[in-house]
């Protein structure tokens, strides 16, 4: 049972981080469908850093890895910001392009590094078994992961930033009614740009948290298995509000964790269901949940519409 809680918390942390990223971007008025790609790039930056930092003290490893992932995510999200805010491109096309590009780019980079180190190694795997240990604190049989703590802190920061600061309220204004925001002197472009960059920051950290959650090496050809989109479902289910996102993420995290640990729970293993059922579960649940909750969605009003000065 403690294993189930442990994995639930881990996957929930990932979903919270990435869904908060989506939340900031959408509150500023930009739909970020590229979260999946941002996660892959963040994960790649983090994994390569982890691998390089094998023997350093724990605190250094954690800080440097998390920062590396966040920076990679932010740089990558700039591609979305420039295309969608400055050039007014279709946000769906660019988001999709970023997802496909993320996996392709990470595969090419990781393979290039692997081939350079050893010409016979043509895999796209990165191993970080040593570095990964830095993130784990054992409390009895329960493994507390630093990402859970980081997520908890960032969740509180996000809540305060969004609802209690001038920046957050202005950000939300740009997603609801950018013309009104502009008329009182808020720079809509800058606000939207910062919204996207925050989503890159959080998405990047989410990426490294995801790939270190269950395994100690990652094959980058596979991307992050639709987790970025699950996070978007969590965000919609959480009605774009940080505290509700956290609760929604716990629910989804639990279903995702079941596929890792169902064989250890006697009630579930007695059912003798095929393991693919558990693999499909998060996606099926999210479809059902979305079908039930999307009708009265409280999405930011101006999301997805490029802002043009002087347009009514």
């Amino acid at each position, binding site marked *: 049972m403690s294993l189930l809680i442990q994995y639930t918390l881990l996957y929930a942390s990932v979903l919270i981080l990435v869904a908060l990223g989506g939340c900031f971007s959408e509150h500023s008025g930009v739909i970020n469908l590229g979260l999946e790609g941002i996660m892959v790039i963040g994960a790649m930056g983090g994994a390569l850093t982890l691998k390089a930092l094998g023997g350093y003290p724990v605190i250094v490893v954690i800080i440097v890895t998390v920062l590396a992932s966040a920076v990679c995510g932010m740089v990558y999200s700039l591609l979305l910001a420039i295309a969608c805010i400055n050039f007014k491109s279709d946000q*769906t096309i660019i988001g999709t392009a970023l997802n496909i590009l993320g996996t392709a780019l990470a595969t090419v980079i990781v393979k290039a590094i692997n*081939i350079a180190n050893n010409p016979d190694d043509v895999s796209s795997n990165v191993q970080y078994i040593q570095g990964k240990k830095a993130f784990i604190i054992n409390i009895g049989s329960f493994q507390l992961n630093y990402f859970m703590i980081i997520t908890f802190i960032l969740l509180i920061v996000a809540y305060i930033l969004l609802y209690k600061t001038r920046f957050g309220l202005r950000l939300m204004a740009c997603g609801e009614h950018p013309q009104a925001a502009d008329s009182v002197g808020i720079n809509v472009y800058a606000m939207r740009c910062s919204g996207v960059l925050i989503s890159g920051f959080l998405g990047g950290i989410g990426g490294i948290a995801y790939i270190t959650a269950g395994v100690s090496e990652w094959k980058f050809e596979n991307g992050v298995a639709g987790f970025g989109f699950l996070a978007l479902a969590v965000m*919609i289910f959480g009605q774009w509000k940080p505290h509700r996102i956290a609760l929604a993420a716990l629910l989804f995290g639990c279903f995702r964790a079941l596929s890792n640990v169902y064989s250890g729970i006697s009630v579930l293993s007695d059912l003798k269901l095929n393991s693919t059922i558990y693999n499909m579960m998060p996606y099926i649940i999210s479809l059902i949940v979305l079908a039930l909750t999307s009708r009265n969605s409280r999405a930011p009003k101006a999301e997805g519409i490029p802002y043009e000065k002087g347009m009514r």
Partner: protein
Amino acid sequence: MEKTKRSLLKNQGFQSFIASIICILLGLLIGYIVLLFINAEGATQAILVIIKNFFKYPSAGAAMKYFGSTLVKASPLLLCSLSVLFAYKAGLFNIGAAGQYCFGAGICLYCALSLRLPWFVCMVFAMLGGALLGIISGFLKSFCNVNEVISGIMLNWISLYTVNTLLAPVKEETSHYTLNIYNVNTDAMLPKLGLDKLFTNNQYVTLALPLSVIVAIVIWIILEKTKLGFELRATGLNKNAARYCGMAERTNTILTLAISGALAAMGASLFYLTGYEQWSVTSSSVPAMGFNGIAAAFLGGLSPIGAIFSSFFIQHITEGGAYVDKTKYCSQISDLISSIIIYLCGFVLFMKTFMNNMIRKSELKKGGNE
């Protein structure tokens, strides 16, 4: 002379063509720069290998044979891109094409290998399966307000796991690939119509090739010349105006995604029923074909006729990527190039506005001088 040239530049189709060429050139250039970063020595050769693909074979016969192989994979890609662009015309982004393709592959292989049905029945069942997925997405979109991109992605993963389970009983005992149709049920193979002779006896060149082009033309006719096509395009341009004119917006959404799903699934059956490749029941992601379809659709300027050429081009560089020197680079470099092309396609609107502004400025200048 001057006048005809100017009107050509103003032509929408011509502008799309120029924009696509710019996307391709920039995509290849960025790909080249990435290659330079990885290993400067072989970069020029590698990019040439990608562009050449089958032309690298010195004998005409071999080149023709591999040209055939590229065409075999370009046909399903064309159908995937038709699927994407058909939905896009109605304002829907069918990223679920990848899952519909995957589901179609599962159903047609199951019908062929387990139920031993002839090829056209397999294809029809696959299309119905793809249409079903499309209907689910469409229903969720029009009645539950679920973004079709998110439901599409969820359905992609659900269909991947379903297909892996469905095909597990018909896999080879020693490997994780499904049985070869050629050995099990030759009735399920697509007829060759003698086309294989044209491509130096490439046994995989079949009816799929002409059929995919015919489908592209049919889709063009539906979009441009029928009431349904007009309604779909009107809905895509302005949903509210279309509804105001009395067009059944919800039914149209579901119908569009159903047709779109059937197209992607048909693409899968056109590929897997040639026996060119078998399905691996341990696949951990949906085939890239559906996503490449997005690239081909936008690169072809969202026109079914343009898609014929862009699908071939995307498949051409994807195949070319397989020939790069594996001790220095990896074949995914062509995935990278096609994803950069999709990204750049997002800028097409900007490029067109820029071109129009240029034309207007030069015209104004002329008017001022006269």
